[in-house]
């Protein structure tokens, strides 16, 4: 009887450790969620979670209007001409990131609306509230890194 109780206790403790460990990983991964500002300060990107992956969209633009049309900026450089009418405000430029441990999110892409190009991308959290965003084509060595700071909404 005592052995049975003991084994039950062990099972519960084991499950608790598993769940606790899983939650900790999830909490680590979810640190990406929030509002971020690229180094040029021209936009702000809101990163959120859909399913188990992370996505980021433009929610603020320093210059929201197109200087030529005087209307809200749209994705005028999209290679798919049928999608050039998508507003840049709300545009998902970060897509499909998975958390890979050691403060790294990868497998995703970043879109540069200034040239209509999609790059492979890896995100690292070097320190709290600072992201290192590396966009590249093919191999990581051929790319560019930008630093994004977390924006605290008051």
């Amino acid at each position: 009887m005592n052995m049975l109780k003991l084994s039950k206790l062990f099972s519960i403790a084991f499950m608790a450790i598993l769940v606790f460990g899983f939650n900790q990983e999830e909490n680590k991964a979810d640190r990406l969620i929030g509002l971020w500002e690229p180094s040029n300060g021209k936009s702000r990107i809101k990163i959120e979670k859909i399913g188990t992956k992370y996505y980021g969209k433009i929610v603020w633009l320093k210059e929201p209007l197109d200087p030529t049309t005087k209307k809200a900026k749209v994705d005028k450089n999209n290679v798919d001409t049928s999608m050039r009418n998508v507003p840049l405000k709300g545009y998902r430029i970060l897509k499909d990131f998975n958390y890979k441990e050691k403060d790294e999110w990868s497998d995703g892409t970043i879109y540069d609306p200034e040239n209509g190009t999609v790059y492979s991308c890896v995100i690292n959290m070097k320190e709290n509230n600072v992201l290192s965003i590396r966009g590249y084509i093919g191999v990581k060595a051929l790319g560019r890194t930008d630093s994004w700071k977390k924006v605290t909404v008051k």
Partner: protein
Amino acid sequence: MKLYFLFILFLSIFLISCSKKTSEIDLKIDNLSIFAEGELYEGSNSAQCEFESPLNAFLKEKGLTIENLVSASVSECELSVADSNNFNIYSSISMQLTSEKVEMQNIGVLNPVPENVNTILIKTAEKQDNILQLLKENKIFAVADANIKKDTAMNIDLKLKMTFKIKYNTK
């Protein structure tokens, strides 16, 4: 000469009989509830829903396998307001599909959203690369990115209908 003609004729008949016949079907997804709880703020807001791929039921019904599938695209995407409201609060809506294994696909946009209507048709994208891959997944997420004209206490509460055009081989 006659022999040559007969050879060409038999070869043509053989090739035609062996070639695969491609058919097309529209698979519809109806009445999905796409929702985000308010308050909503001026600018970009997102709402999403999860649905099961209609592909499995179709393959089972036709006695086909995944190998029979040739291509898929979203041919129609309709949104309607779930209550008595209209779309006046929205300035633009773009739609995406994604799943755990397949990357997010833009499927269309409506910009601007017309006023005083309670149903809209999203203008579907010409370039749709991975819709077939998405449909092979069991669980798919539909994501609506809506630009809202002003802060509001209401929810995003929309009904989504989609039509997938599927091309498949019957032989």
